[in-house]
């Protein structure tokens, strides 16, 4: 996407003085499409003390010092908070504790949501579903995820994730932006800003939302917002409707060739105007119109799955032919990754099982399991898994106790932030299981991974030191990891 924006760091910089500036910034930046995104590069260059160092030196110094393992990311966000008990965190001892109250020694006064805090009893409920170990790593996976089980050896299941947030909005916002309050840039925006785009015809950050998920908890586009970063870094939602990107379609009947012709005249008009003004913004606008036109072709192209062989649809499962389903979005994600889109994020809602969990979680797993595994297999056989990071997980976990009345096969689970499971796969990730929780999957026993640590690790895999990817806004330096986060070495291969 475009790089012509007002760079607020550079101009805020105390050392900056327009009169001192001897660098043709635009030319310089256009030549540096490699490594760190041009926008972030400007920040790193900061001081502009050009007399002291050659431009080449500065570029070399500002290149990532960490060798990147991942070139791109696909993040399957399971919105609502999937239960770890019925997916990855096997707790056999709970079988004997059915219906018993949660011991205070386990809860340790931890806060509960207003939905179950006032419940008179907090009865323990074991998973209704069985677990088995799969693959060489003997990874525990529940019977609800048979396809995922088949790719178990690709996964690094983190059982010791934790977050600070106990309610959906702050928790999702925290996971997506590193802060619980709205207004900060999303992970994908940070990556677009930090790493730029490798595909000049597609946005660096693309979002898709499953149409076939239960909408129990709402989503909202600010989750892929750019916050204080320039708006070119916002996530662009690809939709299954006839306008796959907002305003992409030309007026009805007016085809691409017609548009091209019109845009040529627009360009002439702009050039004529710029003979008067000689304003770089006009040139920038001309190139943005060219990019827009390229998107008009490249987006429908990449979204067209008609040439995919049947075997691919079979791999992703029955939903994959139905545009907008999770399965179809997974297939599309693979295509976008092939085009080197930096960050693809899929949202699948419906995991907020306060109630009737055993029944509802079956639906969720059926909607997502096969396509998730297919995406991994498909990336692998195309040789892309080695430099693509795949992430699966929600915003928090669920409680060991039943929210509401417990019966033999009906229960619900409330939000639980203190431990939950998610997984990473692909580029630079060490397959296996990481971290341990107690018998109640209530507390972490070993190797806790905070959301900030997860972000730091993710950036590390992409070759970025999370402490260095900064943006200055309103007088302070912001990071995805705020002032926290550490790379979790144990997750790295």
């Amino acid at each position, binding site marked *: *996407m*475009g790089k012509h*924006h*007002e760079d607020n760091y550079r*101009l805020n910089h*105390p050392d900056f003085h*327009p*009169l001192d500036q001897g660098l043709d910034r635009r030319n310089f930046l256009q030549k540096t499409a490699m490594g760190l995104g041009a926008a972030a590069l400007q920040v790193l260059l*900061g*001081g502009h*003390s050009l*007399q*002291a160092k050659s431009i080449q030196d500065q570029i070399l110094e500002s290149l990532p010092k960490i060798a990147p393992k991942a070139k791109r990311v696909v993040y399957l966000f399971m919105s609502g908070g999937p239960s770890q008990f019925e997916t990855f965190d096997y707790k056999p001892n709970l079988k004997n504790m059915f219906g018993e109250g949660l011991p205070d020694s386990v809860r340790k006064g931890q806060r509960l*949501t*207003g*939905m179950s805090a*006032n419940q008179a009893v907090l009865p323990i409920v074991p998973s209704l579903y069985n677990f088995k170990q799969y693959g060489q790593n003997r990874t525990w996976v529940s019977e609800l995820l048979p396809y995922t089980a088949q790719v178990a050896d690709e996964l690094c299941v983190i059982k010791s994730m934790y977050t600070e947030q*106990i*309610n959906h*909005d702050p928790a999702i916002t925290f996971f997506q932006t590193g802060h619980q*309050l*709205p207004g900060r840039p999303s992970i994908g925006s940070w990556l677009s800003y930090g790493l730029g785009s490798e595909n000049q015809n597609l946005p660096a950050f693309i979002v898709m939302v499953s149409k076939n998920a239960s*909408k129990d*908890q*709402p989503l*909202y*586009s*600010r989750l892929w917002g750019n916050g204080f970063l*320039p*708006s070119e870094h916002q996530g662009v939602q690809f*939709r299954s*409707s006839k306008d796959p990107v*907002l*305003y*992409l379609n*030309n*007026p*009805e*009947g*007016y085809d691409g060739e*017609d548009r091209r012709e*019109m845009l040529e*005249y*627009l360009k002439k*008009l702009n050039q004529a*105007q710029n003979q008067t003004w*000689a*304003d770089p913004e*006009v040139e*920038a*606008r001309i190139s*943005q*119109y060219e990019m*827009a036109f390229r*998107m008009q072709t490249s987006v429908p192209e990449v979204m067209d799955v008609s040439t995919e062989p049947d075997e691919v649809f079979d791999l992703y499962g029955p939903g994959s032919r139905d545009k907008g389903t999770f399965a179809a979005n997974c297939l599309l994600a693979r295509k976008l990754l092939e085009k080197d889109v930096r960050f693809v994020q899929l949202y699948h809602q419906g995991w907020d099982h306060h109630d009737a969990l055993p029944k509802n979680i079956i639906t969720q797993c059926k909607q997502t399991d096969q396509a998730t595994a297919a995406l991994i297999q498909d990336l692998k056989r195309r040789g892309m898994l080695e430099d693509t990071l795949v992430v699966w997980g929600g915003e928090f976990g669920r409680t060991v106790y039943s929210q*509401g009345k417990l019966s033999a096969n009906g229960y619900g689970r*409330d939000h639980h932030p203190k431990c939950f499971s998610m997984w990473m796969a692909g580029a630079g990730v060490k397959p296996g299981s990481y971290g341990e929780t107690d018998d109640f999957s209530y507390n972490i026993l070993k190797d806790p991974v905070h959301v900030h640590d997860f972000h730091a690790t993710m950036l590390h895999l992409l070759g970025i030191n999370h402490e260095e990817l900064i943006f200055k806004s*309103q*007088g*302070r330096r912001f990071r995805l990891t705020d002032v926290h986060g550490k790379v979790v070495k144990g997750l790295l291969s």
Partner: protein
Amino acid sequence: MPKGVALELKNLPNEIDFNIHVKPILSDKCFACHGPDKAKQKAGLRLDLPEGAFSRLPESPGKFAIVPGNLGKSEIVKRILSDDPSYKMPSPKSHLELSAREKAILIKWIQNGAEYKPHWAFVAPIKKEIPASTIENNPIDYFISNALSSKKLNFTGSASRNFLLRRLSFDLTGLPPTVDEIEFFKNDSRPNAYEIQVDRLLASPHFGEKLAAEWLDLARFADSHGYTIDRIRDMSPYRDWVIQSCNKNMPYNQFIHWQLAGDLMPNPTKDMRIATAFNRNHQQNTEGGIVEEEFQTEYVMDRANTFGDAFLALTTGCARCHDHKYDPISQKNYYQLFSFFNNVKEAGQISYNDDMPTPTLLLPTDKQQAIMDFIQAKIKTTEGKLQQVKPSGFDDWSKGEGPTLLKKQSIPQHGLVAHYDFESTLTNLKNDKEIGVLKHESGKTGDVPQFLVGHSGKALAFDGDVYCDFNRVGVFRKSEPFSIGIWVNIPKNLKEGVIFHKSNAERLFNFKGFHVYLKNNSLEVMMAHSAPSNAITKITKNDIPRDRWVQLTLTYDGSSQAKGLKLYIDGTEPAMETTMDQLYKDIIFYSKQEPGLQIGGWWRGLGFKGGRADDVLVYNRELRPYEVMLIAQKNSSENIFKDPNHVFDYYVTNVDSMYLKLKNELRNLRTAYSDSTESTQELMVMQEMAKPKKANVLLRGQYDAPGEEVFPNTPEKIFPFASNLPKNRLGLAMWLTDSRNPLTSRVAVNRIWQNLFGIGIVKTAEDFGNQGEMPFHPELLDWLAVNFRETGWDVKKLIKSMVMSKTYQQDSKASPELMERDPENRMLARGPSSRLTAEMIRDNALVASELINREIGGKSMYPYQPEGLWEINSHKYKQDTTQAIYKRSLYVVVKRSVPNPMMSTFDATSRSSCLVRRQKTNTPLQALVVLNDPTFLEASKQMGIRMSKQIDLNVSIKDAYVRLTGREPQEGEINILVELQKIEWAKFKKAPEKAKGWLSAGMSKIDLKEVDRPYVASLAVVANTIMNSDATITKR
């Protein structure tokens, strides 16, 4: 010394100024560890104060960070020049580095004596004396021309009248000039022609809209609550108040006084209270199950942060978790500011239906007000009549069997609609079709009642989760008298829980309905439309008896007043404190599943765990005190009705036909009144609690980690709070506009300057602190700031002085040399230019196509928007189908979680928090919007039709061009467009289906002959091409 630093030293100016050169470096690179944040000061060193920098280093004996004039003895110098990672500063861990120039500056400053100066923005501005003649001309020009000549630059000549009028019209009204306005101005040969235009635009009713569009960003105005659920709310009366106040040129000090504290002014008017909605524009969370205090705290913080950002241009919010790292605002200061905004009785989790979060102001229309007044008057009369009722027929009645029957009844029978004795069923003894049902959570059934030993016979026992729902029994409106009696046995160890209620899921609907709730050792009685501030709340003062049977009766007279809602314990009214007495909307849900009386528990709330209940009685009238004595078994009916006064009273209130008729009338009138208020608009406003709420420092900024108690105060380093000011928001507002406050006026002037010149004199309009930028023209800023205050905070006058300046009127064209020297135009050797804002881009197209609806104010509108966007947020977008769709863009509905894509693509803010400076981006998505959004296609279509009526193509293209860009096209431009038209026309003639989208855009229908369609479409393409061109999009 490294070569680079030595080289830089030579290039430095002779005078190194602390504020201009040094402090930005110290602040940005050093203060994080050696600044005002006491908790983070490393090695005991702080560099923000000379005392700190010059004193002995506590951890390095005998050493000093800075010894003025002595480089060799200054530890700083050694450290910044060192390459040793364990010794050098800033430490490599910080990821901060000093450039060679920065090192040189620090060295030279120390060498020159290391003079500290106070931060410029915290020193009150001084109005520099300037020659009288220049004041008459224009003080702005005096300062700018001096600055320019010192740089050997000159003003550029005046912009041509076309450009000037377009610039001025957008800047003052947000709208482009019309063709007639352009013509008029161009032909006006009067010497003051420009000033005439300025005055016309300042007087335009659209002036207020333009200023409001900017203010609404700052006020984080939105049409939805934000957070996940993000339902729509209507705060438009506040927005309209802003527009009107700007149009009336309300003095800026008054403008902010009202917004911060209108409710605290003596005898506040309706408008003053509307203005306080400013403090309630923040996001509010509807998500069920959130922690109440957590979000109450967030709301107060948002107010405090907005106060700092908007009026002080200080990032006060940074001191939420720790002392500010750069500015003299301690964490304690922050919570002192916080405490000004803390005294509002409000909900953390707002109601799950669309009730406005309280406190609110009712805003009836004139008609509604007239109806309400009329009914109110009748209520008064009827109440009066009731007082004076002369009963008739008592003698006859007393001779009959009436009094005898009264003496025989064990409980009052008149008006008894339900009686549950829980002997073995949950059946209403008065109507065996009404059977209570045990439920848990949101209403799941299947629980079996437990009947244990009761007060008389059996009682119903509760486990805290399961509750007994009597369904439609007990549904009363606030206009209807009723009474509810119940025997309860409250276990000793129960701290908190509901006894009975008519509501749904505890706070989920903000306690709409009524309840009796055990809280510690008291009973809380509440009747609410939406708690806490549209409700009646009373709490018993003394301890409640435990572990024995107690009779509770709640009686209510239908008056919507606390004194009409009474609780009796064992037949006697206990001492109670009324904590809220303003119930002004009804207490029912108006839903098919209207909840009725429920006892023993509620979904998501604490229940009557271990408690028992017996003999529940429901009356559709207010019981008399002696009747309550009867059901509490404190007296026998025999005894009670021995007293002739009781017999007479009973007769009057239960038998006398006139009394009953009037009582009935009164109830009907009150119901009618309630109906009339129900649809009345409500606005969230500020209302101060009688007793201020306790405020504490919150450790790490967390709501549940209170530290030291704090009281209202302002950061003393900025400007102390005068002791004679009230310690509330009104005092705070007055502090803000005190002539000695160094910030308020500067911040306001700078923001207004930014909105006219594209960039503030202080570029960081949101941050005047140590991390902000220095003013580019400091003397000018100060002169304007003082003058603004001295001339009565007159906004229109200030704006006029700016736009009348030669500086503003310059041509914006820059020579390549000037562009190179001053790409951002800080020196102002040319006129301002910038991309139109989101609002202007759309409004311009609407004006050019004459689709615009210039109606001012009213509800927000729903323009064209791609389908399906709101669905992910589980809402449905209902596009307007009337002329409202052509209203100006400041009325476009702002849904925080799913912003309007046209607006946000052009950098409109999300309104999640206060913002005073928008981004200015240039992206491909913007291209797609103006090319394909129906708003712009429809405008193009309408322009195409207009153009097609003109016989001469060149003339029609010229006209369209002027409408969109404010100027006539040059010959080359016309030629390009003429050629384009030809090609498009030929194309559409050959393939008419290609024109379809161009001719069907938007809801305006056109009636064209088949033969004319290709021509009109070709002209629409031409119009759209102009619309997309720089001449339209950029204001020059």
